[in-house]
């Protein structure tokens, strides 16, 4: 699994995750992901290139969203309709972390 960071206009940080966000993948990205959520305040986590998500990945996202909120910031998820989105919704994450299908919508949510 890969993680990369794009700084967007308006102080928004886009964290792009790629690959299988299962236990094996989550262990790889957990530390760099935690560092970003501790330092940044407006975060889009882009799951467009994530083709699989399991509970350990959900745990990493939820812990990250809690840290950002605790620091007075907002974390949103960009995830097109897919089985990955279905996992997020089944786990009840859509009620806790804002979920957007397009980058424009995710950016607009963080711009206000």
């Amino acid at each position: 699994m890969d993680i990369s960071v794009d700084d967007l206009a308006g102080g928004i940080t886009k964290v792009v995750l790629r690959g299988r966000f299962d236990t094996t993948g989550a262990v790889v990205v957990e530390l760099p992901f935690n560092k970003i959520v501790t330092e940044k305040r407006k975060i889009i986590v882009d799951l467009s290139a994530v083709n699989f998500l399991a509970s350990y990945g959900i745990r990493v996202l939820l812990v990250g969203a809690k840290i950002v909120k605790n620091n007075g910031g907002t974390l949103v998820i960009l995830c097109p309709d897919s089985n990955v989105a279905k996992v997020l919704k089944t786990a009840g994450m859509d009620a806790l972390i804002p979920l957007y299908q397009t980058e424009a919508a995710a950016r607009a949510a963080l711009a206000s």
Partner: protein
Amino acid sequence: MANSEASRLVLRNDVAELKRLAGWIEGFTEQRTSPDVSFALQLCLEEAVANIIMYGAARDDPLEIAVELERNGANLVARIEDNGRQFDPTRAPPPVPARSLEEAKVGDVGIHLIRSFATGMNYERRNGRNRLTLRFVEPPVAPAE
């Protein structure tokens, strides 16, 4: 393509084995199942086997986890057998929806995901072993117009 096919994999209780499990499932489902059933199978087996690896043994006791896949027409059956401590996931209570991000509990979604993505789930304790059977059914193919 044969109408009925089966495969078996034996794993140890080591988190590194999950990667081997994922590769093996991918090999089995390729050409045999729809992408949605393949995804559901990958998810349910990852969750079930990760639970056994993390909680099935006291301390570092070695465990044997056997996974069997059998496809018969539109039906796919996965059986997971382990010699770890007794645990019936079908009796696990559903998670309580959190009211806010602050209150949300981390963890406890794995069994809920299995329940939601598998078509059926059955548990037996037999000869000191846990045996979890998961069923998946291919959705009917829409008739061509």
